[in-house]
């Protein structure tokens, strides 16, 4: 299958150019057409920066220093503004974490969705009214014609996020990027919004990249998963394989600290320590200080292990095989 999004060896840094802080180091990640990829990691791991920098949305002072981001055949690194504008909202729809903050408080939500349509299809905003109603219906907003006239503060969190999703879908993009789309919502609404996201992506055959720290969400909607730690991907693969048999100790830790849904299996082992902050990453394996199975070799950068069609960045399989030899 063809890749909708293909990120190759992406390096991102921020801050003073003379004394930069590296945020992302050498991330490679691809999203196939029609597949949903979950990008998992703790805050500060660089998962959001990876996606936002790829789309040129990371904000001032955040720079891509190396690598390539190809979206449906268009190279985005170094692309000019008109190209980026065509891509943003046209080829990629983006959903952000906090739906209240993500909507302009002074504009009716219908107008905001219409603006997304108008920016790519031209015409007047009013001409896109039917499209707006259609989109709102699609994301399960009841009484869409009336809701379109509401201001963001008049809607509940769930409704706002549906509006944000409708806005991302405005121009039928081939890829949806969603940054923690359910985190800011009440628990009871999370499932509903997740359902909307699943319908808009998986069920419609639309590719998606979902950034989250919630492994449960990944298990529910994603086909593939990539785990980030300290600016690097430490493990990636199909959700089935990674969840069944995680290779990287960090992934193992994440999965173990997840409260199991089945009763009786309440094994909740929290990982000790906290992830290191950008700028203070250890030289070797960044996870080594927290790793229960760290060995001497972990003070040097670990190689990528691609045995058995899997992908993980850890010394361990090699170390063990070396130990087996000696």
């Amino acid at each position: 299958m063809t890749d909708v999004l293909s990120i190759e060896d992406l390096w991102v840094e921020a801050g003073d150019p003379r004394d930069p802080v590296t945020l992302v180091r050498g991330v490679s990640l691809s999203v196939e057409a029609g597949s949903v990829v979950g990008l998992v990691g703790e805050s500060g791991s660089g998962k959001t920066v990876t996606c936002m920098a790829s789309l040129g949305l990371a904000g001032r002072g955040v720079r891509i220093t190396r690598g390539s981001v190809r979206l449906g055949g268009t190279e985005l690194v170094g692309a000019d503004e008109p190209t980026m504008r065509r891509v943003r909202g046209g080829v990629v729809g983006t959903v952000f974490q906090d739906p209240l903050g993500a909507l302009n408080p002074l504009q009716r939500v219908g107008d905001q969705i219409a603006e997304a349509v108008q920016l790519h299809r031209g015409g007047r905003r009013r001409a896109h009214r039917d499209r707006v109603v259609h989109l709102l219906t699609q994301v399960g907003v009841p009484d869409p014609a009336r809701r379109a006239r509401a201001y963001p503060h008049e809607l509940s969190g769930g409704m706002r996020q549906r509006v944000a999703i409708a806005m991302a879908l405005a121009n039928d993009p081939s890829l949806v990027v969603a940054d923690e789309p359910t985190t800011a919502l009440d628990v009871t609404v999370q499932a509903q919004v997740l359902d909307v996201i699943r319908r808009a992506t998986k069920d419609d055959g639309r590719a998606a990249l979902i950034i989250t720290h919630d492994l449960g969400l990944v298990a529910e909607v994603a086909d593939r998963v990539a785990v980030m730690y300290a600016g690097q991907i430490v493990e990636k693969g199909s959700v089935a394989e990674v969840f069944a048999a995680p290779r990287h100790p960090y992934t193992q830790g994440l999965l173990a600290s997840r409260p199991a849904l089945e009763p009786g299996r309440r094994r909740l082992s929290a990982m000790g320590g906290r992830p290191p902050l950008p700028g203070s990453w250890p030289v070797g394996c960044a996870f080594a200080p927290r790793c229960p199975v760290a060995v001497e070799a972990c003070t040097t950068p670990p190689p990528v292990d691609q045995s058995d069609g899997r992908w993980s960045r850890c010394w361990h399989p090699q170390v063990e095989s070396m130990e087996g030899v000696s």
Partner: protein
Amino acid sequence: MSTDVTGVSPTAAAAGGAPARRRPRLGPVATTALRLVLTLLGLLTLLFFLVRLSGDPAAVLAGPSATSEQLEEIRTGLGLDEPLLSQYVAFLGDMLRLDFGESVFTGEPALDSVLAVLPATLILVVTTVVTSVVVGIPCGVLLARAGRVARRGVSFAMTLAQAVPSFVLGVGLIFVFAVNLGWLPAFGSGTPATLVMPTIALAAFAVARTARMVAAELEQGEDHDYLRTAYAKGASSRRVLWRHALPNALPAVASAIVVEVSYLLSGAVVVEVLFAYNGIGKRLVDAIFARDYPVVQAAVFVIGVFVIVVNLIGDALVRVIDPRTTRGSA
């Protein structure tokens, strides 16, 4: 929240509503108005007692050369021979009827003589506010978004504009444009040309304040997610600025300008006198010099009402601009 299907969150409904209190609460507009009316009353009361208590107003009014019959005549004429309290009650009654007495000099009703020059001051205030918005907003955008050099330059200009009092700037303008270049009339009122320098003198400060306010709002708003959303929709940075960032800065700027108007009126008094611009400020100062107390009282009253009206209009304006203040608070 479980009410999600209704689409209206309880917090959103409560956000704009009045907090629970024992007493029924007036709307914010009414509260503002009531407060200002009370101030106005307080101010006039103060004025009343100051005049009555600081010696003999009749003697002040009549001047040093007055005979004792003249003094007596003025006293009875003004009701000064009555007890203070009944004078005060009569004074309040007069105020309710908008009767401030007659100008001691022209004999014309004091309120009329003040209202006659109100339009001139109104025009000056309007041109100043318009200037402060039309010049202040672009300057604010430059302050927040321009390159280093331009930003430094604008910032320096704004610092200067904030530090130069209107009368100093006014004198400078007269020196350059009237005395040396002869482009503009130094004095007078009634023609558009006479408005130029007073407006600049008054507006400089307001421009700087507006610019700083806009810049601060833009910088603060830079991290707002809705701006990133707009970029994510494919909007250009120009569109994001003018359609999303600036409109969101406006409610704060509008409120600031309303507050500004009271400073503006202070400045207008000085500027009107300096440019011999025939407005309320000049009328007030002339009346003070002439000890024409009825006109002083009327001028203070009219300025007070003016401030109240501006505050009410400003509140209404902010409500129009920002839907969060009206809708959804029912």
